[in-house]
């Protein structure tokens, strides 16, 4: 047989995949490794979808998505974010942000074009750039900057082949968000070097500290931004696979061209569900956001108490504590914690090399499980620190030092 695609072969296997295999062999674990809400889709949304199924609304939709959904998205973007997009030619409904990202990259990249990808970040970004024929150029963000990528670091990575910057905030896995000054500086870099900006804002509603600033809102950025968002995280609708992209007509037409041949349309029952979610879902979203915030506060407080240093993350539902105090690498820590205490986390290195020394913990799980996970992690920390000769803050306080 002839060799398979070189591009595919060259992309390394997912660091999360290996961990998934380790975890799935075990029973009775508490998983902090889940990258999706623990809430079920709000009932009114499920109920609306059932209604549509009963009435046989199960055909293809327009390539760009149901007109009613695009109108609802346009109104939502204007009402919540102050963004003006024309639902007829500037919005496309996609199969999750995953597809929107793929379309965005394929619409703008020529072979060899470079895309700047800050890390640690979502595991799909680099492979998707490669699959689209581009070259990902990673830029590390550091804990000392709160895992916010600095404009200087981005600028230093720019070459004549650079075509776009791919940002996402609040960020999976760190929970960090980009505040207005960072965004303005990135906008300035994009303007000066004439770059596209792909902005994945799927976690925008899960912002607990600062008001989220959508990237196209920055002066001059609407024309060069491919804005990606969806329903998975805020409305707890991961499995429905419905998201959207908004961009100026020329860019969007290019995305539609790919989408119409590869996907035809996003799942239509999911599109009907999304209309219900976007029209009537805000009270439920507010309740879920309030709940995540409480769990974040409780969980991160617990991490710091047991000696896993972790600043309060701005958004999403991830904490990204440092495990350096244990002397273990990210992988060693996650594997030992899984084997000894049955708590699953994801090594920071799965999200980029600069994630070394950190693990991702999702607090999208029940309070009881978070409390139990913290108890187990505390036992683990006390044991680990005894082996390495240092003592945790908990132990010190127990002996009144």
């Amino acid at each position, binding site marked *: 047989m002839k060799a398979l695609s070189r591009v595919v072969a060259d992309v390394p296997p*997912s660091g*999360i995949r290996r*961990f*998934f295999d380790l*975890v*799935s062999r075990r029973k009775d*674990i508490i*998983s902090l*490794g*889940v*990258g*999706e809400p*623990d809430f*079920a889709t709000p009932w009114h949304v499920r109920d609306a979808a059932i209604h549509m199924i009963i009435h046989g609304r199960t055909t293809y939709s327009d390539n760009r998505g149901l007109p009613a959904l695009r109108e609802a998205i346009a109104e939502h973007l204007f009402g919540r974010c102050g963004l003006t997009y024309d639902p007829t030619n500037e919005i496309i409904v996609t199969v999750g942000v995953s597809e929107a990202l793929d379309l965005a990259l394929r619409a703008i990249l020529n072979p060899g074009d470079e895309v700047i990808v800050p890390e640690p970040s*979502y*595991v*799909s970004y680099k492979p998707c750039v490669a699959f689209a024929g581009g070259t990902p150029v990673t830029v590390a963000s550091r804990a000392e900057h709160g895992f916010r990528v600095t404009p200087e670091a981005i600028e230093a990575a720019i070459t004549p082949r650079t075509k776009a910057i791919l940002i996402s905030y609040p960020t*999976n896995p760190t929970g960090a968000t980009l505040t207005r000054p960072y965004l303005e500086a990135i906008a300035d870099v994009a303007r000066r070097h004439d770059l596209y900006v792909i902005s994945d804002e799927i976690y925008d509603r899960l912002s607990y500290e600062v008001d989220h600033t959508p990237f196209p809102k920055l002066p001059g950025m609407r024309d060069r931004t491919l804005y990606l968002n969806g329903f998975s995280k805020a409305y707890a609708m991961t499995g429905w696979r419905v998201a959207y992209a908004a961009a100026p007509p020329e860019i969007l037409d290019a995305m539609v061209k790919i989408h119409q041949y590869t996907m035809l349309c996003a799942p239509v029952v999911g599109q009907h569900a999304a209309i219900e979610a976007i029209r009537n879902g805000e009270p439920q979203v507010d309740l879920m956001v*309030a709940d995540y*915030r*409480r*769990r974040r*506060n*409780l969980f991160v*407080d617990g991490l710091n108490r047991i000696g896993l240093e972790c600043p309060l993350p701005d958004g999403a539902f991830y904490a990204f504590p440092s495990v350096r105090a244990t002397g273990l690498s990210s992988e060693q820590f996650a594997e030992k914690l899984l084997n000894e205490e049955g708590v*699953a986390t*994801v090594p920071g290195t*799965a999200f980029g090399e600069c994630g070394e020394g950190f693990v991702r913990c999702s607090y999208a799980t029940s*309070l009881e499980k978070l409390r139990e996970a913290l108890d187990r992690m505390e036992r683990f920390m006390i044991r680990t620190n005894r082996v390495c000769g240092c003592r945790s803050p908990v132990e010190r306080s127990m002996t009144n030092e």
Partner: protein
Amino acid sequence: MSYSQSPIPGPIPAGFHEALSILEQDSRVSPAEIAVMIGKSEEEVRAAIAQFEAAGVIRSYKTVVDWERAGDERVMAFVDVKVSPARGVGFDDVAERIYRFPEVRSVHLVSGDYDLRVAVEGRSIREVAFFVSDKLASLERVLATATHFLLKRYKEDGVPFVDPESDSRLDVTP
């Protein structure tokens, strides 16, 4: 006149409604945890809860029990009661005569054909029926009653009486 509004003994603390929401969902969450969750000190939360209790904002801490599953047969009926109101007190005096019976779980004044909706609990249908005919229907100014025996509990106080759905998420996802 115990059914009139009693004056509130202390100020109702502002900015602690989130603490109430948390306790309404789960009254076992400790003041220390609530404090961390809402970004206040434990002392502030303790003081606010004490004030809520004193002001009658927090009425009680209870547990939702599925007695049927516990193997304890109880009979519950919702009794609609039509009352002729009296000048000055409306329905309040009759409502009080009713809610003081320990068999009565709840009393609400409602709109519609009947005026009071009363939940009555007893050990047998006979006991509940006797209570309605002997104690409720015979009250002065009670014009009519309609008794609905509870056949099955689906949800109570916001809690579904079924086993929670299992978590179908994969253990590790990106």
